[in-house]
């Protein structure tokens, strides 16, 4: 069980007041707040042991390197990877998708197909569009129904022998949709030899993930959305797949031997990590993983489910509020909303005057907003440090804001 009032004490940001009100932070879908343990661990590295990793032959460098490499092991356990060599550090999901799109698509043939869904984040669209233009590939989008769920019949109809990549969000940053990953995986594996990539940006912070059990091929993880610092994330991939992929970035630390006309690559994971890595951020992410591990991801998941249920009922009672949220039994605690005749930026500016932080815009899911004929929505997302009171405050603030704006 997560007791939010106790847990909040670990997050110094909640000491702040906004416009004279308590901070009601409901924008963890954009980035999460950080506990003291993450902040202190990063300060500790800079204060006591800072030195570049993998290079030095002295105490500081070996301590930093050990701490940095230990994070791979923490992440391996966190998502139950087969090996810590499968944990590739990247700046975040965006860099992860750019790496995967560039590396995978280079080896595809013209006319090969990529399947995405209509509700993907731009980070899981644009890199594929760029690669598709470069290598003459075709992108198909799985329909998302009016109830904000994936249309599995449509997915099935899209799968064919030319399908080489299927890349789909694990938890929607708009509707909270949690597609059935195992079902997608078995459809993909039955009908194609494509790789199945899961966008874990919203999924991994909120739910217990076991990549071996899911049977997937790649997973992109964002560090800053799961209590870690910005500038660090992970691409997990099956060892045998990673070993066959070429690096996209060249430079120091990723080589075995370099000659004037050629070079050979270091083994995974290092061949994908050119240059000095953001090792302090990675160590900060390690502290975040420890924090979540100590809470137990089963509790984190239950908290998300309970809060979603409460928020869904609470927000559902507000007159005039349209909620883009799936009705499925399970979904993420994410609510994109709109009010007829009121602009999303007006609502979010007003909510800010109540100390409530939400995001307004298209949330990097512009094509889906266009499909729904919406310019913008405002979005509230709950995380471990949010409770019923936060959604009570949000609901009251929305009602007051609507009054002020109409």
């Amino acid at each position: 069980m997560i007791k939010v009032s106790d847990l909040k004490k670990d997050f110094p940001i909640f000491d702040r007041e906004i416009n004279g009100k308590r901070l009601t932070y409901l924008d963890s879908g954009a980035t999460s707040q950080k506990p003291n343990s993450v902040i202190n661990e990063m300060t500790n590295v800079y204060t006591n042991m800072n030195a570049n990793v993998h290079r030095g032959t002295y105490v500081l460098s070996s301590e930093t390197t050990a701490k940095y490499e230990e994070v791979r092991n923490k992440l391996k356990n966190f998502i139950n990877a087969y090996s810590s060599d499968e944990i590739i550090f990247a700046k975040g999901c965006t860099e992860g998708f750019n790496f995967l799109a560039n590396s995978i698509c280079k080896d595809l043939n013209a006319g090969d197909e990529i399947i995405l869904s209509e509700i993907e984040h731009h980070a899981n669209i644009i890199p594929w569009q760029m690669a598709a233009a470069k290598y003459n590939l075709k992108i198909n989008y799985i329909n998302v129904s009016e109830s904000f769920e994936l249309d599995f019949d449509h997915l099935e109809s899209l799968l064919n022998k030319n399908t080489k990549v299927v890349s789909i969000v694990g938890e929607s940053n708009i509707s909270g949709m949690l597609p059935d990953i195992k079902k997608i995986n078995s459809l993909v594996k039955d009908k194609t030899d494509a790789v199945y990539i899961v966008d874990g940006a919203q999924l991994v912070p909120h739910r217990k993930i076991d990549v071996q059990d899911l049977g997937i091929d790649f997973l992109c993880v964002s560090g800053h959305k799961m209590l870690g610092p910005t500038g660090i994330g992970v691409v997990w991939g099956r060892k045998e797949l990673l070993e066959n992929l070429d690096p996209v970035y060249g430079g120091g630390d990723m080589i075995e031997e370099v000659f004037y006309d050629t070079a050979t690559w270091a083994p995974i994971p290092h061949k994908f990590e050119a240059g000095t890595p953001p090792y302090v951020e990675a160590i900060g992410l390690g502290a975040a993983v420890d924090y979540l591990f100590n809470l137990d991801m089963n509790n984190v998941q239950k908290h998300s489910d309970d809060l979603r249920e409460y928020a869904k009922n609470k927000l559902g009672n507000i007159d005039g509020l349209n909620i883009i949220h799936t009705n499925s039994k399970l979904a993420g605690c994410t609510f994109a909303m709109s009010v007829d005749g009121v602009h999303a930026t007006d609502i979010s500016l007003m909510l800010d005057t109540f100390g409530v932080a939400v995001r307004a815009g298209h949330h990097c899911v512009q094509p889906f907003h266009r499909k729904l004929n919406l310019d913008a929505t405002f979005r509230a997302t709950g995380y471990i440090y949010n409770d019923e009171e936060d959604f009570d405050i949000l609901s009251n603030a929305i009602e007051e804001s609507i009054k002020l704006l109409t």
Partner: protein
Amino acid sequence: MSIQEKVEEYKKTLALFPNPQEKYQYLIEQAKKSEDFPTELRIDEFKVNGCQSQVWLVPEEKENKLYFKSDSDALIAKGLVTLIASIYSDEAPKDIVNSEIDLMEEFELGVILSPARRNGAFSMLKTIKEFSQKLAN
């Protein structure tokens, strides 16, 4: 009234509202009171880039002076653009080009004028100055 005098007037008015919510309500009132904007002018040619909501600014020249019609699909942004348009309307293009007023500094309008944000107000001012520069040449 000169640009500077109009800025001073608005500054005095906005200072009457100590908290952001009241300031936004004042902007909403300005939006509601503003002159009707012909919907046929809601076109890309007049759209101000860089705003979170859609904002339109239409310049008109009469007897060597510039006038601006404005609109937005969001109320607070519309209030802000109404205020900015009125500051720079009925002014000579060269006076607009030469005016160096930092609205972020002058009006304490909270997050909507925060310089750190990819700023809509900044884009509105830039658009007004670009129109004026063309005419001043």
